Each structure stands twice: as structure tokens, then as C-alpha cells.
């Protein structure tokens, strides 16, 4: 993990100290969450200019709370801590998050943070896909005013986020959807210790007549530079009475909204085909949670 230009390792205890360090190093300061993807970034040549690491574990950003409106998760909450949120065991609408948290190895869950995995803007991660389907909102703070953004606004490209120097994600909020809602997440992986080939998360609300009231379909795992929503598939389902044929049809439609990559994990053609298969499976898994 050699960072050849590293000059300073800051462990700020207040937002002001974060700003000070960030002001000094600008774009060459890297905010450190759990640190579990540092090697991944370094191996891709993305850290060669880093001069300062800002370890934000002392800012008190860990913690989570559930209310009638939904769930608030501090950015430095680890996956392992988040897994213990009682609502995950019982709330069908949080199923996608519960599913996504089962995949990472123990050592990653123990350090990887909710904020870090989002800010990394890595299209191969799992939790961001689940968050996108759950319509996550982020609180971002920095030298300027606190701001609220939707998750999709954060992603600015492959390993690129839209945060300004010194800005960091402080909280992730998941609003409980209205009606009978459930969600699910599925990852296709080479081994149980691998980045996703493709992953898919869905959240769906269905009324008593079996008509889809609301739906979110998100895909990740190299189907684009960022995790993406499939508007085409969502449109096919919204307001329609659900059937196996319709679900199959909607799953096929995700192909219109993704541009899969070709790499050593999979060809673009395989990713495209699998995006459809696991979208269908994720829809069915979510629907099974409504019964």
C-alpha cells in the first residue's frame, strides 16, 4: 500500500480539522473510511498523487437509527454494524440491503463503511446497488453548507464522485416507501470472495389487486461506469398487474439502460444476459417477500 507521495496522515476530530487538511492538499487529499478498497484503487493507478490521508473515524459518524419514516445510517457505520440493525430482519422493504450485506467476507464487513463504499464510486460494489433501489439520500458536508443529494448524483464516473475537496458523506437516509413494499438483491459472483460480475436490486410496491404501485430497479457490477437504474424496466411494470410474463418482459428491458463492460471477469454479452436473469430473480425474490 505504498503511497509514494504521502506526506500526512490526518486523524481529525472535528469537521473544521477535515476542512483544514483538505484545504492544504486539495484534490490530493483522500478521505479514508474503512480502507478496504485502497489497494483496489492503488492497483488501478488512482492513488499515485495522494499526499494526505484523512482518517475520519473520530468524527462520530458511526451509528444508525430506525424511525417510522425510515432508516438513517451514519457514514462510518461498518457493514457488520449495519447487519445488526433489527429492522433488517423484519422489514421486507429493506430486504435488498439485508441480502447485499450477506455477500462480503467477514474481514471486509468489519471495516468497510457505508459512506466509503458509496464514495468509492466503484461500479462493482454491492451495497450501492441496494441503496440505489432503496432510493437512498445522502447528507454531504464540507467547508460550505450541508447539502442533501440523491445517491445517483454522487456518481460522476468510474471511481469518480461529485464531492468537492474536503466534502464527505455524513449520513445515508432510506425512506420507508408507502404501501406494501419489499426489496431484494442478488449478486452473481465468481467465488464468495469476489467483486460482482453483475448485481441487481429491486424495490417494488404492490397493491392488494397485484398491481405495481412503485418500482425501482438498480443494476451494478460493471454494467456501466456507475450503478444504474433501469427506467425502461420500471416503466413496464409501473401501474401494471404483475405476471410471470410481465416480469420476464421487464427483466429483458434492462438491456436498454445498461452498457456492460468487457473485462477479465466477463464479456459484455454475458453481463447483458445475466443482468436480465438476475433482475428477474430479484423481482421474484422481492415479490416472494410480500406474501
Amino acid at each position: 500500500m505504498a503511497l509514494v507521495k504521502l506526506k500526512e496522515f490526518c486523524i481529525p476530530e472535528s469537521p473544521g480539522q477535515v476542512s483544514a487538511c483538505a484545504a492544504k492538499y486539495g484534490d490530493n487529499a483522500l478521505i479514508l473510511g474503512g480502507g478496504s478498497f485502497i489497494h483496489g484503487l492503488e492497483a488501478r493507478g488512482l492513488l499515485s498523487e495522494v499526499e494526505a490521508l484523512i482518517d475520519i473515524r473520530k468524527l462520530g459518524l458511526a451509528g444508525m437509527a430506525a424511525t417510522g419514516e425510515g432508516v438513517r445510517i451514519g457514514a462510518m457505520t461498518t457493514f457488520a454494524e449495519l447487519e445488526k440493525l433489527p429492522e433488517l430482519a423484519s422489514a421486507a422493504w429493506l430486504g435488498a440491503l439485508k441480502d447485499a450485506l450477506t455477500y462480503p467476507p467477514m474481514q471486509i464487513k468489519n471495516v468497510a463503511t457505508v459512506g466509503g463504499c458509496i464514495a468509492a464510486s466503484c461500479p462493482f460494489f454491492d451495497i450501492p446497488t441496494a441503496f440505489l433501489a432503496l432510493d437512498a439520500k445522502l447528507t454531504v458536508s464540507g467547508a460550505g453548507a450541508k447539502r442533501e443529494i440523491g445517491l445517483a448524483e454522487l456518481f460522476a464516473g468510474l471511481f469518480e464522485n461529485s464531492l468537492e475537496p474536503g466534502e464527505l458523506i455524513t449520513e445515508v437516509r432510506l425512506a420507508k416507501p408507502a404501501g406494501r413494499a419489499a426489496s431484494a438483491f442478488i449478486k452473481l459472483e465468481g467465488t464468495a470472495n469476489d467483486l460482482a460480475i453483475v448485481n441487481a436490486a429491486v424495490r417494488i410496491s404492490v397493491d392488494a389487486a397485484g398491481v405495481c404501485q412503485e418500482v425501482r430497479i438498480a443494476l451494478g457490477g460493471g454494467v456501466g461506469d456507475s450503478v444504474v437504474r433501469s427506467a425502461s424496466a420500471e416503466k413496464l411494470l409501473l401501474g401494471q398487474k404483475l405476471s410471470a410474463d410481465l416480469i420476464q418482459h421487464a427483466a429483458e428491458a434492462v438491456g436498454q439502460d445498461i452498457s456492460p463492460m468487457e473485462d477479465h471477469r466477463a464479456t459484455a454479452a454475458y453481463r447483458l444476459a445475466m443482468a436480465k436473469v438476475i433482475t428477474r430473480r430479484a423481482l421474484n425474490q422481492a415479490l416472494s417477500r410480500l406474501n
Partner: protein
Amino acid sequence: MLMTNLNVVGKRVLRQDAYEKVVGGKGFPVNFSLPGMLHGKMLRSPYPHARILRIDTSRAEQLPGVKAVMTPKDVPQIPFNPIFFMPAGSMGIHRDMLILSDTVRFAGQPVAAVAATTVAIAEQALQLIDVEYEELLAVFDPEEAMKEGAPEIHVGVKNNIRDTPSFSAGDVEAGFKDADYIFEGTYETQRVHTCYMEPRVCVSDTDSNGHITIYSSIGHLFGLRERMAYVLGLPVSKVTAVQAPYVGGSFGSKIDFAYIEALSALLSAKTRKPVRFEHTRYEDFICNARHPMKVHLKTGIKKDGTFTARYASTLCDTSAYSTHGPEVILVHAYFGLMLGYRSPHMKWEGTVVFTNNMPGGAFRGYGAPQAAFAVESQIDEICDKLGFDPIEFRLKNTPRQGDPHPFNPEWKLNSYALDECLNKGAERMGWSQRAKTGSASGAKKRGIGMAAHPLWVSGCVGFPDIYEHSGAIIRLNVDGTAYLSSATMDIGSGQNTTLCQIAAEELGLAFDSVRMAPGNTDNLPFDAPTHASRVTYSSGNAVKVAAADAKKNLLEVAATVMEANVADLEVRDGMITVKGSPAQAMSVADVVKRAESPFMVIGAQGPAPTTLKEKGTIMGISSVAPPANASPAVAEFVEVEVDTETGQVKVLRAVYAHDLGRVVNPAAAEGQVEGGLQQGIGFALMEKMLFDPETGACLTSDFLDYKMPTAVEMPSKIECIFIESNEPTGPFGAKSLAEACLIVPAPAIANAIYNAIGVRIRSLPITPEKILAALGKL
């Protein structure tokens, strides 16, 4: 008859080194250090094929903490071959590597080296070495490399063809004319890495007389000494290789020289300090790997299910250097492709080709996994097409116990129980209930498949120029225990425990009374590398001979002390008794004490001079060649589940049946099977080294990108059936086990996939994409 009254051999004894390994494992070579030690690092070429025009090291040399920098001009330009199981200067190997060369032939080849006070400084210094390269055209595909006009990788090697070995028996064309059916297919295997967990590491310490002492993770102590001396132009007596008590895995890889051993010695000589190198995982990945091979197989069959002719050709990418290529292809051909099944007419033609790929190395099975994938897949195709039972078909065409050994008719297949392997394995798996191919319904389909390897090796005996002999020293202690010393390296599979069991059994001691005492090349007899499934059989034989020698000496002393005849004495559990009069007993400890005692002993009548003729340490030594190549036989059955929507395959169950002559340690034997299956599933389904098609750079250089099975991908049921056929030339009847465990899984899995979904994949790994494509879904 299998001896049944054994006390130690055959028992599930606990590994002696395990206690140390669970608390930290201080004996791993990676933990070795010396005071004042410097750290070495290599600068590696970014180009796959280039000439070095100029190297400027001046900036690196000025960096504080840098103690020495080496470039090709500082290094003896003595061509060598890194493989250890043949003498460095033997006729049979091509010597075309240099420690540092001004011609680069693969991406990542070292071009310079640095020794500095810390690893970080050494790494920083590498950035300050300026190298001017003249880039040359590179070729990575062996078929392209053979074409006219392809880049010349080694001067004078026409079309980059290193070797074209072949053999022929009978008239294969006539055989095909006699055939009722002819089957033909091409089977491809990929470049996979051994992925030993402990990185390659070494510390060299050169004294002021120029004597080099090296501590290393290498799996052949004497090979290391010999190759060091050879490449440095020194007599072997100027090099001492020190044995580590254990090494963190090899699987074949570490029976080769890497670059670090010689570089550490040279840097140590230059700086007069010990110099340590440790590979990064990337460096380990590009150090050596299994040879990719393309096998074309043509087989003539009669209606009765016997072979009329077997023809094969093999294209082997030996990489940028010869290394193992010319040798691995022969083992592949004889013990992989041809000798396991009888045919009146056989012909094989091999082609070993240079490319600009990373070096080929040894990997468990040494050419046989590539062969077995072809042969066992094709037999499955034949049986499927012609309606033969795959087990009966194999039994009809394989050698039988008592037959002359197909490799060397001067040997006999004294013990050979392939039939039991096949029949017992089939019964355990429920083979007779196997569903018809492709008959499973639903998106997830299950299937059962099997593969055999009728004839493998116990020691790789019989090839020209191969080191074969082993030696051992046994010393008895005054407390009734024994030290065993052997130059065999325990690379992880528990050889030391197995050898201690053999020694204890022969000596008549309890297992806990024998301890492995590590040594070095100055004080140990020669032993061949830990390779070729040879340690239990070949080193085991040497240990048994040394133990028998020590026991003879022990009983001679005992006979004098006990006033008995040697022939009447026996040893069991540390006690020496006179046969037929158990009251006359003396412990081994007391006999050794007497032998090592001063010239006076205190008896009931007071001090008296001893009357013993034999004085001093009771020892036994040996240096022997293995008597034969006692072939084990193996069959494996697997059940898989194929997700026909995603193409993903899960291995649900494996039954592995192996004739190993005699089980010395059941837990260690099972461990070989279980670990072999992990490597086999990786080879069959997911592992593949990938390289940038332009630059040749390794893209799978860590475990994020090189995927091997985790505990989740392994079946929860792995069942071992060990058949004890009692090989008369083996120690207590033992033959070998290790490599076969990785030879059979891939074809067994491929055949099970065929049974599940009715499509045949003839190239490894069988990825989800290949399955979907074969099913017409991609």
C-alpha cells in the same frame, strides 16, 4: 500380504509441526532474518520483448540507504535452466536463462537489482534506474509463434520451435484402418498458478572467503546448492543451503530457481552483508505457472470396445525460456496421454514452442492434468456415443496387476488395483443410478461424471538424467528417542510426519519418540526434490533403510549387554525383548545409554570397565535409489449442479478412490485428496492467468483478479476410498498419492457437466460463458 501388526504406520498421528504452526509458525522461511540484513528488489521490464541499450544506475546509487545496484554487466553470464531435478549441466536440458540479461523475453523479466537498508528504499531506488530499451516485436500465441516471419525469440531457434519429441509403437495408420469407429477432438488447457500461500523468499549470506549460505523457501535443498554454484561459476562446496523446518506450500513451483537466490548471493558478496528478497504476490504470479497445452486426440475403436490405434499431438507453450517445456511434455505424453490405456498401435508427436509469455514451471501433475482432461473427456464421449459403460470400458483397456510396467518392461505392476478404485468408487457414488445424459429438468440440472488415471508415478523414476536417490540419517538418543534427518523439504503436505512414522515403525519406537532434525547441505545426504509424488515412496524407502541400519546397530549393542543373540531380539514400543522370554527386556534408552556411556559403568559390584565393543552414538545411514516406479491408480466420481440460466457450476460431491499401496497417515492422505480437489475445481471451472494482449503484462496478479475456490465453492462431501494393494517395493507397502488428486478432477467435472446438460466443453476453464454459449444462450 499387507502387514497388519503395525504400531505407527497407518495411524492417524498428529503432525508434529502443527503445534508450532497454530501459534505463529516461526519456522517459515519468510520469518528468517540475520543481523545487518539488507533488502533486495528487482527492476522488471515493462516490455515483453526488448533489448536493453543502456542502463543508468547513478541516480539510484546516490539514494541514501542504497548499498548496491546490479545490472547485467555485474552478473556472470552463465546460461542456466532453473529446474532442479536434473543436474545443472546435464545433456537433457536447454540452458537459455541468465540471472540478468540484456535481452528481455517476457514482461516482468528482471533487468536490474538493488540492495538497500529497507524495502521502501530499495523500491524507491528502482524508480531511479533509467533503462533505455529497444522494443522488439513480441508473440504470445504459440501457433502464431511457429509461423514464418514470427519474431525470433532465441537466436537460431527456427520458428521458435524448441523441441519436437515423438514416439511410436506399431503402425498407427494400420490401426485406424482396423477401427470400426474413429473419434477425434482437440482439448485445450490454460495457464494456471500454484498459488502457494507463502511467498518465495531467501536470505543469502556471503562470508569473507566467498562462501555462500542461503536460507530459502525452495523445495529442493541440493538443487538450490547446485544451481547457485552453477550460475555463479563456483564449486558446490562453496554453497551451503540451509533447510527450513517447513515451507508454506509449493505444489511444484518451488522446485525451481527463481532470480532472487542468485541475486541475493551476488548482492551479498558485493555488500558483505546478508541480503533478503521476498516476492510480492505479483512477482510470485509471474515466476512460473502450469504450461498451457493443446492436445489433439484421434482414437480408433472396435465394436468390442477395445482400442485399435491411439494418436495424439501436443502443442506446449514453454514460454520465453525452455525451463520445463521439453521435460513436462514427455511426462505428459507417457504418463498422461499414452501408457494408461493399452492399444496395439500408438503414436504421439509433441511440439514445444517459445513465446513471449512468463516462464512455465512445475505444478502438481506435471503435464498429466492437461493430458487427462483430453483422454478422459474423449473416453466419456466414446462411451456416450457407443453405449459402453465407462467403468467396464476402462477396465477392458487398462493394464492389470502382474503385467509388465508399460514404461519399462523390466519392472512389473506388482500392485495395481484400478479395478477396485473404479468399482468401489462407483458403488459409493451410486453410479448405477446415474440419470441419462441431459434428462434433468428445471433450470438447475444435476449430473454425475467420473474420470480415472490408470497409471501415475511414485518418484518419476526412469527418465534419463533425473535425480532419483534419497538419503537419511537416524541417530538414537540416550532417552530412547531418535532424530531423523533428511534433506527432503516438507512443503506442507506432512512429509516429515510421514517419514517419522516410517522411522518409528522400523525402529520399534513410539511415534512421539522420533523427531525430524533439520540440517543443511553440509551435513545431510542428498535427496531429490519434493516433487513427482515421490517422498513417501522414495524418501520413505531411504528412511526405512537408515532406520533398519540403526536398529541393527542398536540390537548388536543390546545383544552384548543382554547376553543374547541378535537374531533373538525384537524391539517394540521402545523395549527390546528376547523372543520367547519376555522377562528378559531392556529399554532402548538403557541400551543407548550404555553405548554412549564412559568406559566405566557402575554395577552392583561397584565401578567396572564396560565390555562393549560398540561405543558411541548408535546411528543408521542410507543413500539409496528407489527400486522401481510403483504406479498408483485412481478414479474420481463427482456430482455437479449446473445453473442453465447463468452457466454457473457447483460441485456437490466427490468420491475419490486411489490405490496408494498403503496409507501411512490417513489424515494426511485425506488432506491431499481434499486439497487436490480445490485445485482441481479451480482448474476445471475458474482459474486462468490473463495477460494484456499488447504488453503481455499479467492482469491476474493478486487474489482480487485470480480467482480460486473458497470454502463456499467446495463440496461439503469429499469421500476418500484408499485401496491398500501393498506394493512390495514400497516402505511398508506404500506407493504415492499427491499429484493424482489434481489430475482427475477436471475431466470428472467436465464429464459430469456433460451428463447434466448434454454439452461437451473441450477447453478449460469451463466458465459460465462457455456453458451458456454451448447451450445456445449466449
